């Protein structure tokens, strides 16, 4: 059992793709936590989706040992995702640590998430160990990037280490620096148990696996513990550490990071950010926990097969154990039946959750158009939060329609400033300021409606800056705007799942685009189908899908009946996967087409 003086806990934070997971690989290899034989690139990215996309989606904790000056240290590190949508994973990781490696790509330099995550660490009072990565690259610009780091996040140039996670150069020096610079974990090993639940996942045999960081006291097998939020008691069955697989041990003491299981079958008992304490001798005050991040994007998730509604609920509940940053509440749609309105931290987050549900839980889902949360002040003085276009009240009752505004930082090559300015102007942006990190790189700050940001801004930014621009934003406030709900009517029936809230100035263009796309996606039926876009009762665009006029096989005699029957049945089977809206069958693709970018 290491003493707190011989424990260090740190996260690796950076902008996306700056090499966090690759550096973690090197730590594992060079400390002999894994053998060369077991090694594979980005080893900690274990989820199928992570390997496929080459990005980290979840935090990954791992325990390694490193000897410095003849002393053996236990180092608990957490690899974190770099993408802006997974910022909550980063903040949860940071709360379990005293230090953070701030990794910066020596060619790309400081990027939006470098700044955002660095400030997150500073707010958490963490010691930052700045590291320039990828110095093996011929295009590396170590001096310039070091200067950027000084300007953007206020580190001292002489503290910046240089490494290559690819070749392994400078890696052990980083571990030495961690031991020297990062404080050892505070806390009294003799005090009653107080441990932070920073993550969890569900295991069919063991129940909920609870990831903990022990703040005070210690926890052993057989100990009776209490989960403070729900006030439920459990007996510890198993304790262990991630090395990187789950390796059992007898005890975890102050400062250590690991996991425990206690046959917790009821998922609702476990809350991320909750405190684990001793049931007999509990600690007095719980840890402050986490501020649950605000969902930026909402959309509906519906099982294609309505029978799967309960399966979807179960899958969402389990997934939430592992990712507490998304939320879901049941909702009903005329067209889609029973489903859930889910809140996400961003579009990638939304996409990933959808894919995890479809893959891991084998569910077929319809995703409705994403929207942000609007606010309506009614004539009667009530403020309603609108998570779904369905919640928009009758026009006559609206005193003020408000939308969320974000403060957004674009970090980009100076030569693209003009492009960004026109992009922001088209999206009703309000210019705040420009700062230069160097003559070549600048941070421009804008205030923009969140709805415009999630729609397609990230893709646009990437394309105008050829990939060199990044952005990062946070919610600022709600502001009144001239907003309307744009409805889509299919065969005279409003398809609630296709409604969107838009700015009046863009309504007509959006409406026309929307039904034009829909027209291509809906198969011809036996009758004409009218597609209309409407604001209230005013039709602003219409299209018709003409009905099939001739679809009949000439012959059906004795010998043909079997074959014909099979064809008819098969054709009907194919349609069953679609959603029935009144008389019209609409495919998943049709719903998705509404979301695609405008041009």
């Amino acid at each position: 059992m290491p003493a707190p003086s011989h424990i260090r806990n740190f996260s690796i934070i950076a902008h996306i793709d700056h090499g966090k997971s690759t550096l973690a690989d090197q730590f594992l290899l060079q400390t002999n936590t894994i053998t060369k034989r077991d090694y594979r690139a980005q080893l900690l990215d274990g989820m199928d989706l992570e390997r496929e996309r080459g990005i980290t989606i979840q935090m990954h904790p791992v325990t390694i040992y490193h000897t410095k000056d003849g002393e053996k240290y236990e180092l608990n590190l957490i690899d974190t995702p770099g993408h802006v949508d997974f910022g909550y994973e980063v903040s949860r990781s940071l709360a379990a640590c005293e230090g953070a490696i701030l990794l910066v790509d020596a060619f790309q330099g400081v990027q939006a998430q470098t700044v955002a995550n660095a400030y997150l660490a500073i707010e958490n009072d963490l010691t930052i160990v700045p590291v320039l990565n990828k110095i093996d690259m011929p295009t590396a610009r170590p001096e310039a990037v070091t200067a950027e780091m000084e300007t953007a996040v206020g580190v001292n140039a002489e503290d910046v280490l240089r490494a290559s996670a690819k070749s392994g150069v400078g890696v052990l020096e980083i571990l030495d620096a961690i031991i020297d610079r990062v404080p050892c974990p505070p806390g009294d090993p003799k005090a009653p148990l107080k441990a932070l639940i920073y993550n969890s996942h569900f295991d069919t045999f063991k129940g909920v696996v609870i990831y903990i960081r022990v703040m005070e006291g210690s926890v052993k097998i057989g100990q009776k513990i209490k989960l403070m939020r729900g006030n439920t008691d459990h007996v510890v069955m198993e304790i262990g550490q991630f090395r990187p697989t789950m390796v059992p041990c007898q005890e975890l003491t102050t400062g250590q990071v690991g996991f425990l299981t206690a046959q917790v079958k009821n998922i609702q008992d476990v809350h991320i950010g909750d405190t684990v304490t001793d049931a007999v001798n509990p600690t007095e005050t719980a840890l402050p926990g986490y501020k649950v991040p605000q969902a930026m994007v909402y959309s509906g998730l519906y099982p294609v097969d309505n029978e799967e509604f309960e399966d979807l609920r179960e899958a969402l509940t389990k997934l939430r154990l592992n990712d507490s940053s998304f939320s879901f509440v049941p909702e009903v749609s005329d067209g889609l039946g029973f489903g859930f309105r889910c809140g996400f931290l961003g579009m990638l987050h939304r996409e990933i959750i959808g894919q995890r549900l479809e893959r891991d839980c084998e569910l077929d889902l319809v995703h409705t158009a994403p929207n942000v949360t609007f606010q309506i002040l009614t004539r009667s003085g009530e403020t309603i939060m609108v998570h779904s276009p369905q919640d928009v009240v009758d026009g006559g009752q609206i005193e003020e329609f408000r939308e969320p505004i974000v403060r957004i930082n674009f970090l980009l090559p100076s030569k693209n400033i003009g492009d960004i300015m026109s992009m922001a102007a088209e999206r009703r942006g309000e210019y705040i300021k420009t700062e230069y990190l160097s003559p070549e790189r600048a941070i421009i700050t804008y205030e923009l409606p969140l709805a415009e940001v999630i729609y397609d801004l990230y893709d646009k930014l990437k394309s105008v800056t050829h990939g060199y621009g990044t952005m990062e934003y946070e919610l600022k406030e709600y502001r009144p705007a001239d907003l309307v709900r744009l409805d889509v009517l299919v065969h005279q029936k409003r398809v609630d799942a296709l409604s969107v809230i838009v700015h009046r100035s863009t309504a007509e263009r959006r409406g026309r685009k929307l039904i034009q796309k829909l027209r291509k996606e809906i198969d011809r039926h036996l009758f004409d189908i009218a597609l209309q876009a409407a604001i209230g009762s005013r039709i602003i665009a219409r299209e018709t899908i003409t009905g099939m006029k001739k679809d009949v096989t000439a012959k059906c005699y004795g010998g043909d009946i079997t074959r014909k029957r099979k064809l008819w049945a098969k054709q009907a089977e194919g349609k069953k996967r679609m959603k029935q809206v009144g008389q019209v069958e609409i495919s998943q693709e049709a719903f998705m087409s509404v979301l695609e970018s405008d041009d």
Partner: protein
Amino acid sequence: MANTPSPSTDQLTPDRSAPWLEPRGLYVHVPFCAHHCGYCDFAVTVGQDHLIETYLEALALEIDRTEVTTPVDTIFIGGGTPTLLSPDQLGRLAGMIRRHFPTRPNLEFSIESTPESITADKVAVLADHGLNRFSLGVQSFQGHTLRVLERQHSGDQVTPAVEIIRRRVPNFSMDFIFGAPGQTITDWEHDLKRAIALGSSHISTYGLTYEKGTPLWKQRESGDVIALGETDELALYTMSHELLGSAGFEHYEISNFAKPDHRCQHNEKYWANEAYHGVGVGAVRYVGGRREHNKRNTKDYIRVVFSGESPTFQQEELSPFERARETLAVQLRRSDGVSRQAFLHQTGHSLKSIVQHRLAPMIEAGLVTDENECVSLTFAGKCVADGLVSKVVWG
């Protein structure tokens, strides 16, 4: 229908002598053709006329082995081109059929033929055996359409053939194909008018289908022929409906028109999903709720029958509910439609239990009518029968 019985209480004790279980019709297949038409995917045998004698022997064996429990009232010899056989062969064929299958007094006995294969001798020998209906594969009177279809006869051969037939067998039908590449609405009008003028009591009009693998299908795939568009096809189909309707023909099945009392009773059995015997290569029979398909290759068929085995190579027996669905699907092709009462009696399932709520929108769209306890397709409904049947029956 306020009170719809649930499927389980719908079940009636099957009456083994019901026409949908005990066959009252016979289909005999003769596969030989002089030439393979470009669009045809039937079980046909071309350039193998030396097999005809052996085939007739095999057929005799299969017929002899067929169990008959009740007399038949329809016999249909189809092909192929049955009238490719010599008068003598036709006589033997008709003879073996008549000897084995007892018949009812109002027997309908038909044969398929082509204009170029008709002779007075053939007609005579068939008529002598009680044959009383000819079905003549005309397809078109237009040279260019016949060429696209790769037919072997010309339009001018039709009238002489009709003259020969009529001398002994006054009741005849003509088959036409519409929608062939290059066919115009005037061509079609002309074809139909000539058929009416020649005194046909029954006209079948088949929309051309490009069956996968046929030469015509390949030509379409390679762009050598261009298929007619949906609007043109619809115009031709509408023309048949209107023109034949005003000439006193009843549009009694999707592709079939008849003067009063001249429907093809044999084919009506198929559209009622009733039972029938079937013998010969590629033939299908439907006996006691089981459907059996014979081997489709003539030599295989002959070999198997001679060795004393059954020529069946595929069979199916559906659950009562699937059978009811199938029955509904085929019965919807008839202009008489589906009588709720008769349907329940035949299938043991109420129509409602199958279509659930899927009928109302079709009625609203003008594709289906539901009057006097009887459901049927309107003309617009007939035009889209495939999609409609699939939707209404299978949901």
